[in-house]
C-alpha cells in the first residue's frame, strides 16, 4: 500500500515536470509546425543560465526563471524571424516545410549544444536546493515546489490562451492559418511568438529542472525524446494533451522504475511506438 502511494506520488511529481518539458514542444509543432529536435537544448540552456547566475551573483533559482524564460523566448523569436520564416517562404508545401524545419532544428541542436560546451564545459554540475524532505511522504521539498510552479504556469498559460487577444489569435492560427489571416491576424508574428513561447517554456523548465537533477551540456537530447513521447501521447499540437501525456508518462516511469529501473527508457519507447501505430492522433485525438 505504501509502495503504491510512493509510486503514485513520485509519478505525479515527475509527470508535472514531463508536462512542463513538453508543453513548449507541443506549442512549437502545433502552431508553428516546427518539430524542434533542439527543444531539449534550450532546456539545457535555461538550466545552465540558472546555475551560472546562482554561482556568480547568488541569484535564487526560482527568481532566475524570470530571466531565463524571457531570454530564451527572445532567442526563439529571433530564430523564427530569421531561420524558420525564410524556410517557410521557400517551401512549396507544409510537408516540405515540416521536413526542412526539422532538419534545420537538428543543425540548431549541434550549434547550441556545442556553444554551450565551449562556454560551460562538459562536466556534470549541480547544486543543492531545498532538498530536505517533507516528512509525511518522504518527498523532497524541491519537487513539490517544482510541481507547484508547473501548476501555476499551466493555469496561467491556459488563461493566456483562453482570455487574451493574442491567445485567441494563437488558437485561431492553430485551427486554420488562412482563416486567422482573414480575421486580421498577422500570421507571421503569431507563429514567431508561438515558437518563442515554446522555447521560453523550455528555458523555464530548464531553470526548474536544475533545482532537481544534475545538469550537463549533453542532457538536451534526452529531454527532447521525453518531450516527443509525451507530445505524441497527448496528440501532436494539443496543449492539454501534453499536460495529460506528461502525467501518464510520469506514472509509467515511476511504476517501471520501481520494478526494474533499467527498463524505464525501453518502456518509454515501447509506449511511444505502440501509440504512434495505434493512435497517431494521440490519446486525445478522435
Amino acid at each position: 500500500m505504501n509502495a503504491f502511494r510512493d509510486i503514485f506520488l513520485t509519478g505525479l511529481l515527475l509527470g508535472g515536470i514531463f508536462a512542463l518539458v513538453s508543453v513548449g514542444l507541443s506549442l512549437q509543432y502545433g502552431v508553428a509546425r516546427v518539430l524542434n529536435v533542439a527543444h531539449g537544448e534550450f532546456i539545457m540552456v535555461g538550466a545552465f543560465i540558472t546555475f551560472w547566475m546562482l554561482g556568480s551573483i547568488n541569484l535564487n533559482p526560482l527568481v532566475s526563471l524570470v530571466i531565463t524564460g524571457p531570454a530564451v523566448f527572445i532567442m526563439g523569436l529571433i530564430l523564427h524571424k530569421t531561420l524558420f520564416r525564410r524556410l517557410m517562404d521557400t517551401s512549396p508545401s507544409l510537408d516540405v516545410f515540416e521536413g526542412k524545419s526539422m532538419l534545420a532544428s537538428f543543425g540548431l541542436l549541434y550549434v547550441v549544444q556545442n556553444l554551450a560546451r565551449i562556454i560551460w564545459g562538459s562536466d556534470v554540475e549541480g547544486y543543492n536546493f531545498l532538498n530536505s524532505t517533507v516528512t509525511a511522504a518522504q518527498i523532497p521539498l524541491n519537487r513539490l515546489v517544482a510541481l507547484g510552479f508547473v501548476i501555476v504556469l499551466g493555469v496561467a498559460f491556459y488563461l493566456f490562451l483562453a482570455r487574451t487577444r493574442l491567445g485567441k489569435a494563437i488558437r485561431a492560427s492553430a485551427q486554420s492559418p488562412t482563416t486567422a489571416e482573414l480575421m486580421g491576424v498577422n500570421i507571421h508574428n503569431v507563429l514567431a511568438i508561438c515558437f518563442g513561447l515554446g522555447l521560453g517554456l523550455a528555458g523555464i523548465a530548464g531553470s526548474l529542472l536544475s533545482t532537481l537533477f544534475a545538469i550537463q551540456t549533453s542532457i538536451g537530447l534526452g529531454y527532447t525524446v521525453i518531450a516527443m513521447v509525451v507530445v505524441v501521447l497527448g496528440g501532436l499540437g494539443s496543449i492539454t494533451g501534453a499536460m495529460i501525456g506528461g502525467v501518464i508518462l510520469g506514472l509509467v516511469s515511476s511504476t517501471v522504475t520501481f520494478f526494474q529501473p533499467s527498463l524505464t527508457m525501453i518502456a518509454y519507447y515501447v509506449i511511444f511506438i505502440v501509440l504512434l501505430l495505434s493512435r497517431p492522433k494521440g490519446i486525445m485525438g478522435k
Partner: protein
Amino acid sequence: MKTIRMTRNRGITLGLLLIAFLILAFLPQVTSGYVITLLIDILKFAILTVAWVVFSGPSGYMSLATAAFYGLGFYIAAVFSGTFPFPVLVIMAGAVAFVVALGVGALTLRLRGVYFAIFTFALVLLVQNVVLEIERVVTETRGRFVDTVSTEGVYYAIFIVFVLTMLTAVLIRRSRYGLALQSIGEYEEAAAHSGINVVRTKVLTFAVSAIFMGMAGAVIATRRTYIDPYIAFNLNTSFLPVLMAMFGGMTNLAGPVIGAALFTYIGEILLTRFPDLYMLIFGVVLILAILFMPNGVLGLAQRVWRKIRGGRRAPA
C-alpha cells in the same frame, strides 16, 4: 543535333565513371595510410547517403532509421565475429537488415510525414536501449570486441558494397519501381488509384535500401575492434546521410555521392584542425545548406554554370 549531344554526354559520363572506378580499384596498390582511411570513411557515407536517397528521395518519406540498420550490421559482425568469414558476415548483415526493414516498413509506412520521421527516430533509440538491456542481462557487459580485418580488406569490402549500392540505385531509378516511388512522393492517393501497390512498393524499396546500410555497418565494425550500443546505434548515423544528401542535392545520384565526399572531407579537416568547433561548424553549415541551397551544391553548380553560359537554353 540534340541526340548527338546526348550520346556524347553519356559517353563522357561513362568514361569518367570507368576512370573513377579504376582509380578506386587500384588505389591501395599505390598508396596506403591516410588516403585509404579517408576513402573508407567517404565510401561508407556515400553508401549510407545513396541508400537513403534511393527510398526517401523520391518517396518523400524521411527515414531516420539508417542508424538502426547500420548498427544491426555492427552487431551481426560482432556476435558472429570469428564464427564466420568476413564476407559471409557482410552478406548476413545485409540479409538481416533486409528482413528487419521489411517488418518495420510494413508496420510503419502507413504513417505520413513527420510521424514517420519521429517513429524511425524513436526506433533507433528503442533498439539501442533494448540491445543495451539484453547485453546487461545476457552477457553482463556493455560492449563487445570485433576481430579486425586488414585496412586493405576493409577498403575493398566497402568499395564492393559501394559499387553494389550504386548499381542498385541506378536500376531502381530506371525501373518501374522508380516511377512508382516518385508518383507516391508526388501524390500517394493518386498513385494508389492509378494501380500502384503503394504498400509493397514502399516496403520493398525501404528494405532494399536497408541491405546496404546493414552491409556498411558490418564492414565498418571490423575497424572498430570495440563496439557498444551507443557506438552502433548512434543518431548521427541517421542524420548525417540526410544532411549529406541535402548538401549534395538529390536530383541525380551524383549529388549524394558528392555531398558525402565533400562533407566527410571537410569534416575530417575540421576535426583535425578545430576539434572543439567541429560539431558547431557542422551545425552552422547544415543550417546554411538548408537555407540557401535548396538543390544542394550540385544544383548550385548547375545554376552558376547556366549563368556563365548565358542561359541560352531552358533547362532540360
